[in-house]
């Protein structure tokens, strides 16, 4: 079997050129492995080989980032690698910045598996956490023995196209992408032991750090609703009978746009719900209960609203990812604006 070709990036310190006083050195390429490459080699065995090591001074990279990156990328490209690894940089900030920047560029430009490693508080983490796998390391080079095998293993898995497990299994820093895995103990036992630690003021790790939520400020009130075109948008799943767009009962992947021109009342014969999160009997019986077309038609005739928009939008808000909902909303809003809709009644269930 062909060995994977690996290019490794390290800084001047790990190449034994020197410390801070030599951080200004420009990039150079050496054949084969240098320094920490040895720890990677042990893990690679017969499957991969470090064909070249690119070395660059941390200050040089930090102070001439654009140029340094170009030079480094040219050196990497020449080797036609299958795998790229940078670091580990531990808690060295400028090294971390360089390692993360190069790793991200390699992944994006060359499209090959690219992995780096550093301590969770290294500022380099913010550069590429969402873009590449960053293996979690200790905060000093003493962590090399555990970090190098994890990085090599992860890179090999990526190169072979194998499934990547959860961060806790593979050893990379949590990147916000949630991934399931089977833990050693059942959840209730994990909860009891987490509570015991919390009570004893011992460190514990939550399995889900709380996210920061978007808060939407309500718009000011509509100036004159009797002159405004009003549209209906619902996450209650009201669709024409038969659910023509096959909107899912949960975790919806789409929304539907439906014409209600000439419709004064939603009936059991014409409309129904696709929503899987509630008893559909009453919604199917009279879909106006979720999407109040009947009342709005009355209001329209009585001049209480300017006009009911002839299209309504519907999706299912049951187990539907926030990212999907956001995507639907952006598109729906665009269409509503194009039709000069001035107010929207959003109904949920």
């Amino acid at each position, binding site marked *: 079997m062909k060995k994977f070709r690996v290019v490794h990036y390290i800084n001047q310190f790990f190449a034994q050129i020197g410390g801070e006083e030599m951080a200004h050195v420009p990039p150079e390429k050496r054949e084969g492995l240098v320094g920490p490459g040895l720890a990677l080699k042990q893990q690679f065995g017969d499957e991969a080989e470090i064909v070249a090591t690119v070395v660059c001074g941390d200050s040089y990279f930090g102070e001439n980032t654009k140029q340094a990156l170009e030079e480094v990328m040219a050196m990497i490209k020449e080797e036609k690698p299958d795998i790229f690894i940078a670091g580990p940089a531990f808690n060295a900030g400028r090294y971390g910045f360089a390692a993360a920047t190069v790793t991200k560029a390699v992944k994006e430009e060359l499209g090959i598996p690219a992995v780096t490693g550093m301590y969770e508080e290294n500022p380099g983490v913010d550069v590429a956490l969402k873009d590449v796998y960053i293996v979690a390391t200790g905060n000093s080079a003493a962590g090399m023995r555990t970090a190098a095998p994890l990085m090599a293993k992860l890179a090999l898995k990526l190169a072979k196209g194998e499934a990547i497990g959860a961060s806790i299994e593979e050893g990379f820093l949590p990147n916000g992408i949630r991934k399931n895995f089977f833990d050693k103990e059942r959840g209730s036992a*994990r909860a009891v032991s987490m509570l015991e630690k919390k009570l004893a003021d011992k460190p514990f790790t939550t*399995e889900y750090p709380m996210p920061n939520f978007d808060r939407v400020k309500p718009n000011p009130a509509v100036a004159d609703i009797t002159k405004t075109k009003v549209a209906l948008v619902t996450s209650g799943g009201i669709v024409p009978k038969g659910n023509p767009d096959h909107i899912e009962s949960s975790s919806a992947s789409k929304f539907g746009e439906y014409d209600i021109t000439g419709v004064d009342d939603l009936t059991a014969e014409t409309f129904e719900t696709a929503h899987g999160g509630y008893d559909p009997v009453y919604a199917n019986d009279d879909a106006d209960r979720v999407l109040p077309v009947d009342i709005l038609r009355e209001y329209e005739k009585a001049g209480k609203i300017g006009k009911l928009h002839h299209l309504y939008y519907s999706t299912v808000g049951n187990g539907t990812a926030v990212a999907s909902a956001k995507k639907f909303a952006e598109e729906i809003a665009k269409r509503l604006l194009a039709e000069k809709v001035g107010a929207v009644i959003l109904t949920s269930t």
Partner: protein
Amino acid sequence: MRLELGNIDIREIRFAEKSEIKDGVLYVNQEEIVAKVLEDDLIREAHLDITVPGESVRITPVKDVIQPRVKVEGPGGMFPGVIAKVDTVGSGKTNVLRGMAVVTAGRIVGFQEGIIDMSGPGADYTPFSQLNNLVLVMEPKEGIKQHDYERAARLAGLKTAAFIGELAKNITPDETKVYETLTVKEGFEKYPDLPRIGYVLMLQTQGLLHDTYVYGVDAKQTLTTLISPTEIMDGAIISGNCVSACDKNTTYHHQNNPVIEDLFEAHGKTLNFVGVIITNENVYLADKMRSSDWSAKLAEYLSLDGVIVSQEGFGNPDTDLIMNCTKIEKKGIKTVIITDEYAGQDGKSQSLADADPLADAVVTGGNANEVIVLPPMEKIIGTLDFVNKIAGGHDGSLREDGSIEAEIQVITGSTNEMGFNKLSAR
């Protein structure tokens, strides 16, 4: 309150002329049970099937899973207020048929029922693949409303489980375990130095087929209250739920609540398990505020130091979960919450519909949106007609060869929020 649970291991289920339990084998007279089920004229047709762990069998759409148990000594009977008369259960002796369950299946609501695979990758996600199951497949009378059929199917399952439980009344258990909850005063005296721990058990009560019953009472019409953990072991809480299969607490989950088991395990050693607070998950804001106020008030009243909160369902109940957590934390009582996630199929969305920095200790049952491919099975119990429609499925979930591509949301019990499983996420 002290309860002795006698576990009788059921190695096998067989159809026979006479319903009985002999040497770890449950013999079932199918006609006898079907006749009982058909006493309810809302059910048109019913039959039984048997599944064994490891078989190439798929059960769907699954409604509820129930473990047969029977009161041997002490007041009350199984499923008090529903099958047996109302009387306080949770003391004396109860026999448990371990290693088996009654599974109710068939066309019920169409949306929220689940899948149990007895082998293959799907089997790893549901605890019920590990049991010998007696599956009760029902067909409703034409034209009846979903909620009426739900009730009929729920009662049929409980009736069947109670009937089978009765067969174990005079059997000597393979293993006996004792669970005891002390009074508040006794607890203080016996374990003066151990942290006082409570369990806030959230019950799904959104209504419209999302209901849970306590001693036969619809829990959405109740205030947050106290219950002894052994009462729950005796069937005081039953599921009437048609929420997504992955995180509904089936009756089996209530009977075998893992938080209760694990707190009893640590009781008297590292903590003092004081008791259980049951609270509902209603849809109106006023109800949510009132119920969570009461959770916090009762936790304080019991002088608790720490609390585990478990959830049922997702989305709307996330707000109840966060209210319970934050209000209890603000009383100076430490919390750990158990939930599950809807982070999208790509795992990139925020996982909960509500959040608060005080919820700093979270156990997760996994991301319910993660996609799985379930290979075809040789035998289907129930029907595949609803696979594309059930929560977690999509148009095209069911492929021509009988395999299913869907979110793990479709698998009964896969992301259970009582912490029944080992599944987690990062």
